């Protein structure tokens, strides 16, 4: 059974095509990163599978249940953290948790306490008086507290300090290790890179790629730095297939490269004496920028 499955899912707002024929499959037990620039359709996709907005065409299932016909049943199986989280400002964090635990049923209080301890959340204060990071912690607890099979998180790390981000990432990995699923829509690419097994990239409502993080990184440009014993010419390196953005500074060369390393080394050593070489795999941020630079 798939955690989330969409088939030609389409949503139009008047003239605006927010989602176009989106086919996506997310399995159980994985952390799936969902990437895209602002306005690409990430939140619309989430709101559609939660039946908060109705698709123009196509369909979606969550844990095998239809997103519209079985909307209420689906909500028993999911935890959701909206982006730009709004809560009832005059309730305390504990009141918020009690309210939603009553609506949901079957929430383990000791687990809530564990979550609050891990996130160092202050549940005694009114959420309207909390800083955005502390409010976000309450939202994370609300999403996690029923141990849902699928966690849908829209920009979850907003406002969290780096220590809390680490803790939260560990919590997401534990969910996946438990055989459950995390659907993580995020701009924090270092976070997605650290926790996600696969990523989907959406652009203007179209899903443009779905790959494992490893495959994506190995396919992508890597950065190569070369150090020589004397001045070098840029043209030598620009001629090598797969080399881009060649920058020469006296004895140093830096370039982006997705060709064969042997070809590059031959070109380098044929003309000059190579003293040192340093290569770096592209991180998700660079891959992301490559995808969108063409826009």
């Amino acid at each position, binding site marked *: 059974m798939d955690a989330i499955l969409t088939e030609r899912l389409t949503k139009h707002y008047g003239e605006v095509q927010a989602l176009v024929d989106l086919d996506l499959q997310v399995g159980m037990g994985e952390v799936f990163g969902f990437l895209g620039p602002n306005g690409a359709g990430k939140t619309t996709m989430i*709101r559609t599978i*939660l*039946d*908060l*907005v*109705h698709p123009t065409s196509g369909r979606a299932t969550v844990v095998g249940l239809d997103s519209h016909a079985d*909307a*209420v*049943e689906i*909500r*028993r199986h*999911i*935890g*959701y953290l*909206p982006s*730009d*989280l*709004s*809560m*009832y*400002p*005059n*309730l*305390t964090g*504990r*009141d*918020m948790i*009690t*309210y*939603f635990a*009553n*609506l*949901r049923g079957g929430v383990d209080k000791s687990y809530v306490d564990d979550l609050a301890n891990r996130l160092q959340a202050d549940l005694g204060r*009114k959420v*309207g*008086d909390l800083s955005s990071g502390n409010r976000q912690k309450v939202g994370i607890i*609300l999403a996690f507290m029923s141990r849902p099979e699928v966690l849908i998180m829209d920009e979850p790390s907003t406002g969290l300090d780096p220590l809390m981000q680490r803790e939260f990432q560990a919590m997401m990995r534990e969910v996946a290790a438990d055989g459950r699923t995390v659907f993580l829509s995020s701009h924090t690419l270092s976070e997605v890179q650290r926790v996600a097994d696969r990523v989907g990239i959406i652009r203007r409502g179209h899903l443009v790629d779905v790959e494992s993080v490893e495959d994506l990184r190995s396919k992508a440009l890597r950065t190569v730095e070369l150090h020589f014993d004397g001045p070098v010419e840029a043209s030598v390196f620009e001629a090598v297939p797969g080399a881009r953005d060649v920058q020469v500074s006296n004895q140093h060369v830096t370039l982006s490269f997705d060709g064969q390393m042997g070809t590059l080394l031959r070109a380098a050593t044929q003309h000059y004496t190579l003293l040192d070489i340093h290569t770096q795999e592209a991180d998700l941020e660079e891959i992301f920028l490559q995808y969108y630079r063409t826009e």
Partner: protein
Amino acid sequence: MLHSVFTKAVRDRLVATLVAAVSVGALTVFSMVVYRDVDVSLYQNLPPALRELMGIPDAAGVAALAYGAMYDFIGVLVFAGLAISMGASAVAGEEQDGTMGLLLSNPVSRRGIVISKSMAMVALIGLGALLLWALGVLAPRWSGVSVEGLDPGAMTLALGVNALVYGFLALAIGAATGNRGAASGVAITVMIVGYLAESLLPLTENLGWVAEIFPWHYYNSSRPLINGIDWGQLAVLIGIVVVSFVGALVGVAARDLKEKSVGVTLADRLRANRRTRKIMERIAGGARVSRISVKTMSDFQGLLVVTGMVVFYLGLIVGPLYGFVPQDLVDFFAQLPDVLIAMVGGANMATPEGFYQAEMFSITGPVAVIVLTASMGAKAIAGEEENGTMGLLLSNPVTRGHVISEKTVAMTIHALTLGVAMFLGCWLGARLGRLDISAGGLAAASTQLALLGLVFGGLALAVGAATGRPRFASTLTAAAAVVAYFVWTFLPLSERLEPWAVLSPFHFYLGGDPLRNGLVWDHIAVLAAMFLTLALVSVPLFSRRDLRG
């Protein structure tokens, strides 16, 4: 003055001001057309004290009656309300919304902000009053009635300045405290108490002077529509505006500004106290959030307490006040034919029921209950959407229909509770005044009052469910309530239009005279059916559309 602050403040309320002025003007045309069919000589035969009570000028022509009902009653309350909302949000509102810090991160002073927002309020109320004046001049031309001896210009000028009094009072309190609720609460209270004092106390033989304490006296007692501007009284009003303005300038500069906050209630303090924590955790904590209906009731308990207190205390004082009504007025009413009494809203002062109906059940009760139910209805769905909490709520295993049913239950319980407060106040007041009025009649009228409120609450719920816009829902409901009230009170005055009065829910509220006859079951059934229909249609209206935000 800060140009951009001024412009934004004007833009924020421009539509509301225009809508208010145009609606009041349109209703004036409407009422003039209706009155044209009526022989108004009966009004001229009423005793002066009663005409005073009903706001009917001495020279009771068609135009004067319409101006009296529309401008002197609805118009003046609408414009004062508008000014209060501007004044209260000018400083305190920006603080509570957390935007004051952002505003003051620019090279502007606090005083500059107060001055700019004050100017915006003056400009908007001035514009609204000008429009009212223009429509007030055009209305008699369109409807072909005479306005001889009337001065709509003086009336609209007094109306505008009067509105500014309450607006600046709210501004000053908000600037001095940073508390928007306190600012609008105090200003509204001063206005309502002054209005009631001015309309009730002069009826009595020796309490009339008390009304002079309140600003309302200086707006209304000189009757600017008939007598033109009383510059002395206008000067008093302008004086209050100036003093409030200076108070706002001093107040805002003297204190620390607040951060975005949610305010501390008594329950919060008791919850924080070591001794009361345990019990309060149960009452204000766990129990309050046990289900959607209970949380909704808790969210509106403040409004319920305020509206409940208003009807309770007014009911309480109206009973003893009946003893102060001059005997000649009572005698006069005892001789009036029934048909005439029906035409003045059943306010037969010869009987305690008539007095209670005039003072409590015809205006005060409906306003209180509709304020409560319309705001509950408008916020039930649309409010949660606008606040962004509906998505979170619906990520739980509940249907949209379930949310609506829970909110409807909360609204029903609150409306009935307000009915109980109305009944208790009036019943105790009747005891205090030793009036012979049946408890059953009071209970029946209070029950039908709650149902009337639920009809308009249901309307607000349905509009909010269909559109997701709380302000639109509450504005539309308020407009519908005003129109329904006038359909019920005005159309019966014209023989031709009289049958149409049954279109108004008010007909099913008071039309069967529950104060005398007890529960009018067929009317109760109609009101209940209207409410249930509106609540039921809200479910598909909400379910078939996309959530906003």
